[in-house]
């Protein structure tokens, strides 16, 4: 059924020469003018420009147009622009339809004649469709001003601080016992070589002390429901078995604990206790008990920590807690983890004690690390030569196809540190050096001047079978030097594997909970690679830092600030207009079979037992149409994509107009 007698204006855009270079726009507008219900048809150089929009507005006003078709680019580009123009001229914004004759036509069709024909067909479909469009009005809901940040690395901390400084409340959820992320493991940072702790520790402290930040460490997100502006989030707080209010952070418990295990923070280079804080500057500095290794939890005996804790903070009775919070926006900043090189057996990681991963090497360089910052072999000797191998796991068809972006740079940072601290010879085995970034190429030049040996070629093997007796005890690095075109065998004391970055474990769960997707490598998909790098297809969900892909600290911080800005801008609006093109269930037709509920990936549908029908929550519905296609009853109407509209469009696309029946005014009314 049509709501009113259609009076349609059709506007064909040249898009400079993007469209008019292929499509005969004049012919298309002339063709359109003869289509049923079309009152005006024009073509114009740039429809999206102000004069282009004004043309539509003036025509609507002067000629009482009540439907508009613009044939131009994709609706993803300018649907909103023209809807707004229609609204400005006083007609319902949904009385508008866009025919995509650029992306779907001029850009992809070789033959101008065929392109012109296709443009006519597309316009005909849109004209047929728009006649059936219905007026829709969007609803307005309040936005909860609180923000949740998931992940307390440098990007998450930065986002939390900016929002908190902006006067809004932030919940910062971190699954480790302390915030800080990967950066807190480093000693120096490229390219400026400033001390990582000096720049990150103040941030940790600021986060811990900010009155607007509620830190939830040793916690994970268990469930997210709701929609932009109104998310309800369940947080699972794991028991620390230490009462944070009583604990003074004195560390006696850790000292007295008799159970030792490999330290995750030091990547197995040292041991920690069963009750521990990951590193001395941990925030909060309340320890946690690792129940898998605590003697009391394992064997029922010990309680040494409890005995020695003067504050009486140890509480073996603590239970896991589920806390529910309400937020208007969520920032995901779950970062990365490093690639485990064990499967690449040619590098001997795990077999030769002097083969380290880069993140282990960061710990070795760090003053709080296993060697208090001294670069020495496991038996305490200063190395005479060190090999650093780039692209371990990265740019590798079998593991990670992509470039991890930071490894070249941190490898050179290591080279500098090794030379500075030990004077050893450093050999960097690289495929290409990638140093885009402010001051990065300069850093590379500096390293070359400092005497680091850069060898272009992939290492084929690391072995302890040395060539001459004086190298006994060293490791041989075998590589083809592709510039010198010969195989090099270099004896070294230490090998550093510059392992690539991969998404933090569990990222798919977070993505699923908030209704977004990850790419084939597991990184979160942003809304648009250029125009929406921090947004996601789920409104109100933003991303920052390495969860989207490998990047360095400056970029991670910039994204943290950007995401904070985006979240602040959203919540500052206070109110939110909700898209009107959503689904609605006709209670008269619904049989309560709940198939729609099953297929709605956004959880927008709920069952109403008393009425034995299903209902759509318009604020959550994304208008994807899954439910409408599934319901055999056709009880679901996807507004703006209802059956009348779609059938009319298809019919328009397939057939030319009827020569002798355009419908009378009465029928149309």
């Amino acid at each position, binding site marked *: 059924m049509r709501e009113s007698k259609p009076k349609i204006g059709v506007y064909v855009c040249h898009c400079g020469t993007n469209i008019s270079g292929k499509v005969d726009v004049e012919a298309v507008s002339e063709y359109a003018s003869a289509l049923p219900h079309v009152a005006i048809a024009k073509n114009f150089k740039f429809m999206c420009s102000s004069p282009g929009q004004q043309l539509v507005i003036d025509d609507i006003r002067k000629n009482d147009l009540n439907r508009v078709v613009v044939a131009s680019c994709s609706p993803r580009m300018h649907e909103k622009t023209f809807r707004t123009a229609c609204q400005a001229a006083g007609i319902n914004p949904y009385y508008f339809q866009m025919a995509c004759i650029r992306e779907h036509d001029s850009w992809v069709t070789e033959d101008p004649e065929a392109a012109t024909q296709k443009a006519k067909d597309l316009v005909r479909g849109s004209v047929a469709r728009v006649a059936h469009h219905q007026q829709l009005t969007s609803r307005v809901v309040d936005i909860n001003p609180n923000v949740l940040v998931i992940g307390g690395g440098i990007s998450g901390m930065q986002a939390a601080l900016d929002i908190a400084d902006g006067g809004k409340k932030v919940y910062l959820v971190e699954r480790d016992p302390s915030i800080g992320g990967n950066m807190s493991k480093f000693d120096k940072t490229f390219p400026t070589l400033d001390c990582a702790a000096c720049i990150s520790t103040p941030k940790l402290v600021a986060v811990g002390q900010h009155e607007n930040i509620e830190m939830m460490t040793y916690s994970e997100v268990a469930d997210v429901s709701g929609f932009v502006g109104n998310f309800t989030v369940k947080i699972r707080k794991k028991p620390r078995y230490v009462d944070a209010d009583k604990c003074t952070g004195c560390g006696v418990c850790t000292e007295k604990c008799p159970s030792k295990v490999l330290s995750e923070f030091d990547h197995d280079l040292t041991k920690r206790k069963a009750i521990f804080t990951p590193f001395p500057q941990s925030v909060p500095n309340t320890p946690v008990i690792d129940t898998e290794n605590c003697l009391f939890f394992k064997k029922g005996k010990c309680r040494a920590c409890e005995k020695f804790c003067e504050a009486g903070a140890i509480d073996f009775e603590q239970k896991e807690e589920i806390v529910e919070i309400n937020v208007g926006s969520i920032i995901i900043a779950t970062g990365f983890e490093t690639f485990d090189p064990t499967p690449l057996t040619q590098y001997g990681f795990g077999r030769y004690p002097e083969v380290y991963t880069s993140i282990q090497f960061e710990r070795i360089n760090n003053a709080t690390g296993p060697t208090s910052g001294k670069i020495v072999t496991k038996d305490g000797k200063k190395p005479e030569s060190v090999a650093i191998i780039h692209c371990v796991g990265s740019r590798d068809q079998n593991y990670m196809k992509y470039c991890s972006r930071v490894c070249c740079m941190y490898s050179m940072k290591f080279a500098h540190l090794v030379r500075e601290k030990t004077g050893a010879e450093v050999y960097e085995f690289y495929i290409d050096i990638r140093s885009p970034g402010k001051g990065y190429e300069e850093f590379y030049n500096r390293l070359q001047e400092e005497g680091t040996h850069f060898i272009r070629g992939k290492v084929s093997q690391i072995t302890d079978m040395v060539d001459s007796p004086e190298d006994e005890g060293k490791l041989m690095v075998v590589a083809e030097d592709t510039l010198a075109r010969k195989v090099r065998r270099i004896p070294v004391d230490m090998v550093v594997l510059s392992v690539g970055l991969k998404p933090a474990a569990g990222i798919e769960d977070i993505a699923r909970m908030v209704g977004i997707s990850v790419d084939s490598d597991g990184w979160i998909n942003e809304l648009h690679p250029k125009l929406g790098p921090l947004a996601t297809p789920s409104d109100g969900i933003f991303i920052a830092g390495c969860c989207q892909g490998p990047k360095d600290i400056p970029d991670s911080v910039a994204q943290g600030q950007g995401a904070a800005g985006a979240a602040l801008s959203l919540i500052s609006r206070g109110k939110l207009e909700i898209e009107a093109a959503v689904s609605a269930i006709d209670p008269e037709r619904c049989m309560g079979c709940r198939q729609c509920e099953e297929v709605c990936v956004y959880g927008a549908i709920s069952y109403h037992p008393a009425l034995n029908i299903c209902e759509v929550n318009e604020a959550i519905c994304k208008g994807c149409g899954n439910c409408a296609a599934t319901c055999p009853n056709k009880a679901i109407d996807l507004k703006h994509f209802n059956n*009348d509209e779609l059938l009319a469009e298809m019919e328009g696309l397939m057939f030319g107009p*009827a020569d002798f*029946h355009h419908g009378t005014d009465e029928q149309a009314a």
Partner: protein
Amino acid sequence: METMIDSRMMMTDFLTALFDKLDVAGVAVMSKLPSGEKTAFTLFTGKDDIKECVPFFPAMPANAARAVSKFTRQAVPSKTVAVFLRPCELRAFTELIKIKQASFDNLLILSYDCSGVFPFQEINLSDETKLNAYRDAVSTGKNCEGIRPVCAACTRFTPQGEDIAISFVGRSTDQPLVFSFPSEKGLAAAEQLGLDVSNTVAASSAVESLAQERRSAEEELTAEVDASLSDTQGLVNVFDRCVSCHACSYVCPICYCKNCYFDSQTFEYFPESYFIRMQAKGALRFPVDRVLFHLGRLSHMGVSCVACGMCEDVCPVNIPVSQIFKTAGSKAQALFDYIPGENYDEPLPLLAYAEQELEEFED
């Protein structure tokens, strides 16, 4: 296979016992209509009219799953109701449970190995010759002359998911009933009925010989339908006498929609549409959308079609609707490894997400 026992009870004794010993709220079963010649699925709430019951009369006036859905869909009966369902009706019932249109709580489901039914129009209570031939066919495990083609080709004629099964094929109908109890509910009922489970009876070899006959009939039927529908023209030829009465969908047990989409406003086109189509095709036959209707119903219901034959039974113009649905349906079902009516826990294929499926149709 569950052990079968001789109950030493005739049908009327059994029905009476359901009320007396099991204290059921009702028994839903086929019965004679007062008007004389036909039968209807009836819900009895007392034993007074039990002599009117004809549970195994070879006609299907309606798919009983539809009836049972009516009184279990929104609320569970507060007391046990015993229902007699043919195997295909029980399958339809299971499909309805999946789409929340029925519930088996507080039902005692009785079913039996089924020898098929005659087209509803063609069997009357007084048709002694036909009924005698039918009884002979049951006791020898053969397809009786004149039963519906989908019944003659029905290979799933032993029930699945019932509480009490009654064994007929290969036995004489005037002997005491032979039972087995595949479910806990059934076993509990046996105990309450005071049945002596030690009177075991051997399975009849007639079941297997009937199965064999049915399998070859099914192959023939499939080949026939395949040949008639081998192309679009075949589809048009088969359905072009359809009068669009939509009776087939009204009687289909699993066509559960309140208002069939094909009866909706969507198919009341705007007048110019008819001309547009006519112009494109050169002619337009009315009523329009006949093939579309059947394709629509096939796509909605094909995976769940239990081949009960109802649609074909009611078609005023003798289109072999059920034979087509049975054939096309089993192909769609095979694609998804789905067997309708087998297990109420199994999700419908369109609702089940499988990371990898239908790869043969990619690219």
